[in-house]
């Protein structure tokens, strides 16, 4: 139904979606110029929970920044801390034991499933269905329980250390994760029947919220957004970090460019994450979780380092400019949702407000991560 519409001047009005609006999942504000229910022009206004994490990264020592990264994205925190420890390991040349890398991969993938599950629930809630959120949260609680038993916290993990991990996993973790995999597969089938097959759901997403591949490129969209536009891009495959080259997994890609494609990508990604976890548990080697020799004070040599990781929302990059001291000289966080959200203004022009908000849901926004 969306498309170019003929608008006469003076017929529009301004609608403020947010900063407190149920669909924006936080404090995002979109100023929309509306013609009836059609959006003529949209302007996103950010910064309502901007906390200047980059400055904090500059005036604290490297270990002190560790907890900050999990505050970026409270849903998929481990992916972000993973990126942080990786860039500093790259800069300071710290070797990571294999066991630690495997545990990192397993926990990150668990966290990715948790994040996708919550997105799934919230997305269906954006469309007006409340019950799937509750089912998704129930499954997510399993993951959070597993992770809590290892890391000690439920959302804002501070688990990875430069060179390894805070503590080792135990047998309970392994058995609980093994038990979780078949359960999650069963649940995914249930979601498929309850939500994916639902005619109302499909009618609301099929062909709605088109984000073509070229727009993704121009705006730098990554993650499920670009994969839903037919772009086979996954940092885990593209420039394999950690031990991801050891795993056999697929990158789900859909070519429809619509909200349904993005939804399907994420649902398939959960399945792929389960595969990674399965393989990781099988291959988990014994050994230490921290390197034998690790500098007491981390002082990366002078230089400019970049590290990208695939988080639940897309490619997360950290640029670390070091001047050789114990603080970073420049600590740039390239958050995926920031780029994904920036295309919203252009993509939603001419859409109905319902569809635009459904599309916004399909972008999987976490506002603290955009605002940093």
């Amino acid at each position: 139904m969306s498309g170019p519409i003929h608008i006469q001047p003076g017929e529009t009005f301004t609608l403020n979606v947010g900063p407190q609006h149920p669909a924006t999942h936080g404090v995002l504000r979109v100023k929309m110029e509306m013609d009836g229910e059609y959006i003529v022009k949209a302007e996103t206004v950010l910064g309502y929970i901007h906390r200047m994490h980059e400055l904090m990264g500059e005036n604290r020592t490297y270990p002190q920044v560790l907890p900050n990264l999990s505050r970026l994205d409270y849903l998929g925190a481990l992916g972000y801390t993973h990126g942080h420890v990786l860039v500093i390991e790259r800069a300071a040349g710290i070797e990571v034991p294999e066991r630690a890398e495997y545990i990192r991969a397993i926990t990150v993938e668990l966290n990715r499933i948790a994040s996708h599950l919550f997105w799934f629930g919230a997305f269906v809630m954006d469309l007006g269905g409340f019950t799937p959120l509750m089912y998704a949260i129930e499954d997510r609680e399993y993951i959070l329980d597993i992770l809590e038993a290892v890391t000690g916290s439920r959302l804002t993990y501070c688990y990875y250390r430069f060179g390894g991990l805070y503590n080792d996993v135990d047998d309970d973790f392994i058995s609980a994760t093994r038990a979780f995999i078949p359960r999650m597969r069963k649940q995914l089938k249930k979601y498929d029947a309850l939500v994916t097959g639902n005619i109302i759901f499909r009618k609301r997403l099929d062909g709605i919220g088109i984000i073509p591949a070229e727009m993704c490129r121009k705006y730098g969209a990554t993650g499920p957004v670009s994969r839903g536009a037919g772009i086979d891009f996954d940092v885990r495959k593209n420039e394999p970090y950690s031990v991801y080259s050891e795993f056999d997994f697929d990158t789900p890609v859909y070519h429809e460019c619509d909200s349904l494609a993005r939804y399907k990508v994420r649902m398939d990604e959960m399945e792929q994450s389960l595969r990674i976890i399965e393989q990781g548990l099988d291959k988990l080697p014994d050994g230490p979780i921290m390197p034998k020799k690790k500098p007491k004070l981390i002082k990366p040599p002078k230089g400019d380092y970049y590290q990208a990781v695939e988080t639940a929302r897309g490619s997360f990059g950290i640029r670390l400019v070091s001047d050789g001291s114990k603080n970073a000289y420049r600590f740039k966080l390239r958050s995926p949702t920031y780029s994904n959200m920036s295309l919203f203004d252009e993509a939603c022009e001419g859409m109905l407000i319902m569809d635009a908000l459904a599309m916004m849901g399909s972008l999987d926004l976490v506002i603290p991560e955009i605002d940093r």
Partner: protein
Amino acid sequence: MTMTNESVKQALRDLFPDPVPVVDEPASEDAEEKEETRTNGVLERDHAAYGYDIDVQLDPGELLAAVMIVDKAGFFLESITGVDWIKNDQLEAVYDFSRYDFDTCRIVIRTRTPRSTPKIPTISKVYPGAGWHERETHDFFGIKFDGHPHLVPLLLPEDADFHPLLKDFKP
């Protein structure tokens, strides 16, 4: 490095009229008060060590040409940021580009501008996604992006007149 990346590199090299050897090493230990300065040019980097492959430094005037080369080669814009080299009295803008397909190549384009009058042409005409990144960099560093259609604070409050990532910023 595949064909496209080689050709991009060559095209970027062609931007510089007389190829001078790029010096990247710290000049000497005694140059304490000044950061090492790098001459403009294209530099190849080890991906495993740095996380990027091609490192280009150029003058603001050549930026658009370089970005167009990168755009034509199908790169996507990853981020734009700044670095405050206060000892050199310079502000550096850093553009990260990457590719979607599986031949990994990350290009970093840097350009420096004087700290007192920081001015860099906008690339939002080529990459509309740069709009937000440039606004953010303007927020944090005060770099003016010439020709940007809507250079108002994005993450900072609309009446913010300070630039928190400048090294001489006192909260």
